[in-house]
């Protein structure tokens, strides 16, 4: 089926736009929002939706093809590849683990305790779940 993909690019973020795009696709595959065999929108269509230059989308697609997340079938379009789930789960977990490492490292250098951080994580987690129940993200 044709994938419905909601991409948002923040040009001010640390990652360049093409990498933000690639990462959002990886996360979408990892959460099974995109499944192997799904067809992605064309580069030019997605460029208008994500408000980025078509070559930026093209670069993200090429990177994802190299990683085995996407495969292009000439004349037919670009699809989520068969082995994509495993690749994307690993990529997503690596990104999130690194953020946790950084958080713990920052907290540690600031002299906070493990308990402080755990309290904050629990509180944030509860708020998130609350949003979910209320129909948010």
């Amino acid at each position, binding site marked *: 089926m044709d994938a419905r993909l909601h991409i948002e*690019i923040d*040009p*001010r973020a640390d990652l*360049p*736009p*093409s990498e933000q795009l690639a990462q959002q696709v990886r996360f979408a595959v990892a959460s099974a929002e995109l499944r192997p065999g799904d067809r992605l929108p064309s580069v*030019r*269509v997605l*460029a*208008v939706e994500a*408000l*980025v*230059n*078509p*070559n*930026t989308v093209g*670069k993200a697609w090429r990177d994802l093809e190299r990683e085995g997340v996407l495969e292009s079938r000439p004349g037919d379009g670009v699809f989520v590849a068969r082995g994509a789930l495993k690749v994307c789960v690993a990529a997503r977990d690596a990104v999130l683990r690194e953020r946790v490492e950084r958080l713990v490292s920052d907290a540690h250098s600031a002299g906070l305790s493990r308990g402080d951080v755990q309290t904050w994580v629990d509180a944030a987690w509860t708020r998130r779940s609350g949003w979910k129940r209320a129909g948010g993200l």
Partner: protein
Amino acid sequence: MSRNDEGPVVSVKGLGVRFGRQTVLDGLDLDVRRGSVTALVGRNGAGKSTLLRVLVGALVPQAGSARVLGLDPAREGPRVRARIGYVPDHIDVPSWMRGRDWLAFVGRFYATWSAAEERRWIDVLELDERTKVAEMSKGARTKLALVAALAHAPEMLLLDEPFSGLDVGVRHAITTAVLTSLRDEARTVLLVSHSIPDVERLADRVAILAGSRIERTGDIEVVGRAERGGVDLEMTLLALPATGGSR
């Protein structure tokens, strides 16, 4: 479409422009790749608008050569302008004119003007063309200028500060329209802008104008970020020497 499907759409060599004793551009070289969206960035007074005015044939340089779509804008201005869409930094419109009067007036100058295209871009940009231009917001005027630049299906778009002084909603509407125009047809865009976030969305190439010439060109993600963790485009611009040129 074009008679020159190969090679750069804009090719400038050794360009020199002086206003009186003031040197604005000196030995400037620039090639704009066909199908690219190239952002021309630089400090205030670096000569960006001056370069655009040379390219549309509104200003004749004292030195060097410019080719736009294979034509010399200084001698073949009308033929260049027939094939490009130009959004200047401001438009002068008689006060009695409504948006649609202005479009009807401009449309008469273009053999390839299409009423259907005009309607389509008005809709894409959500412009109320019945408003008097004098009463339009800055955003609405920019949208009007963009409709006028697109309705004759130009091979190239030249945009002079299309985002300046506009809120994010209007800036995104303009970006959407330009990207939509790229979706449907091969088209080259040369854009002057100070709005780095908008440039980083819309452009794939960047040319930095400093010291009266093009100091650097390249892919925007490379020049803009010096390969991850480096300085961003804004920092690159701030680090440029200030120039004594005028606009």
